[in-house]
């Protein structure tokens, strides 16, 4: 775990920049992470990130891309348009929750 400095705030992140303490997150931090990843935060994008974050805070695990496509109100195709290459991964990073784990 390393610490990332954002303005005067110290944020705990993993090697890939995923927050380790969701409580250190706020919307402006989400905006900053999105900008760094080249993601434009439209209302639709925020809807996905909010769904992702709430699901993690409520259940302890991040939803998969399959669940996002079914339950977030945004279809899989659009998810890939909003978050190129890795929707679940990017939405988790922007939403300030640890990296979702899919297993081999």
């Amino acid at each position, binding site marked *: 775990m390393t610490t990332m400095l954002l303005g005067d705030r110290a944020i705990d992140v993993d090697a890939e920049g995923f927050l380790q303490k969701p409580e250190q997150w706020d919307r402006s931090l989400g905006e900053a992470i999105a900008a760094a990843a080249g993601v434009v935060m439209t209302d639709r994008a925020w809807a996905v990130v909010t769904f992702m974050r709430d699901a993690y805070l409520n259940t302890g695990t991040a939803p*998969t*891309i*399959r*669940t996002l496509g*079914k339950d977030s109100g945004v279809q*899989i*195709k659009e*998810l*890939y*348009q909003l978050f*190129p*290459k*890795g*929707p*679940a*991964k990017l939405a988790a990073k922007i939403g300030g929750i640890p*990296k*979702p*784990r*899919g*297993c*081999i």
Partner: protein
Amino acid sequence: MHKSTYTHMKSVVILGAGTAGTIMANRLFRLYRAEVAAGTMRITVVDLDDTHVYQPGLLFIPFGVYQPADVVRPRRRQLTKGVRYVQSAIRSLDADANTVRLANGERLPYDACIIATGTAIAPEETEGLLGAEWHKSIFDFYTVDGATALAKALESWPGGKLVINVVEMPIKCPVAPLEFAFLADAFFTKRGMRDKVEITYATPLDGAFTKPACTRRLTHLLKGKRINLVTEFNAGSVDNEGKRLLSWDDREVPFDLLVTIPSHKGAAFIADTPGLGNDMNFVLTDPHTLQAQLKPNLFAIGDATNVPQSKAGSVAHFEAEILTENVRRFLAGEPLDPGYDGHANCFIETGFDQALLIDFNYEVEPLPGKFPLPGIGPMTLLAESRLNHLGKMAFRWVYWNVLLPGRDIPGVGPQFSMRGKQQDTAAVSAACTEFA
């Protein structure tokens, strides 16, 4: 009032008679032989049919090395006498009533139920995969039918673009698609037509495999064999007419022959029991005790679980030792042993009678070294050798005669060991990789 002399007949129900279910039934029978004989314990196993497939053998069918008859035996005969076998589909699991209901009408009440129903491919999850080209120019090799149809197709294939695609994780035996690519390279080379074949490996992962050291080694092998690697490719649909594989983010991979590893799902009844499984019907399972999250008298093992480890026979085998003890403890009212550490090992066929061997767990990625005896081997870890290949081919005998009967393999314990492994590269890695 006198004390009741009534003794409760205990019932253990095992759902599934594949690798995990069969090992569990045979191990539990050995543990409870006396109780079964005395009529105080019953062990019942349920499965849909009487065909037990030696799944590691499926990889060799497309290349004519094995015929279907080489990999199939009756399920019933792999179970020790004294274990009751019921051939029926499972209608439902009523966790509140501690009862399994079967399609044949039978009800099986249980004191402990072990879910070992594995996983199966779900090509219907991907648009167009089951279209007009299915089993014409699109094949799977994870079923006996698919592997056999692919063997026929390869026999007379004139060459062109061969694409191997993993649709999404998790899949059974995550190295099998890579092995298929390696064996295809060898197959076409031996036929003198390698120059007529372009092999592409398209994966949703960001590398050839998920563990860093292993990925470096496998990427090197792919390059050496002139196999194209396309990463972070999340297949969304198949254009049958145009013979193109399309990703969700609008990339495309054209093919003349597509070997697909479709999405994998757990058994359907798991979806119908609220709280039992995840959105792919894998049972929510404690990764160390193998107890299901839903209820203390439910357990899961092998491919049926959601534990963060490869869906592989070796995992089922190592889990079975821990789970046998935990079922015993549960029935005796003792606390469970959180003893499963994610130990897995796999041979990786690389073609031309060579193979790699990898040994890893939840925390430690595959490392170079010797196995099972430190410094001696005879197997070499994370490097190609002919002996590893011979080990893989000999494993079929071991599977039917040692593994399924639930005997221990000498020198190979259920827990992972760092002995014999070169630790200088031992970057401890999480056993998981990210979803797309």
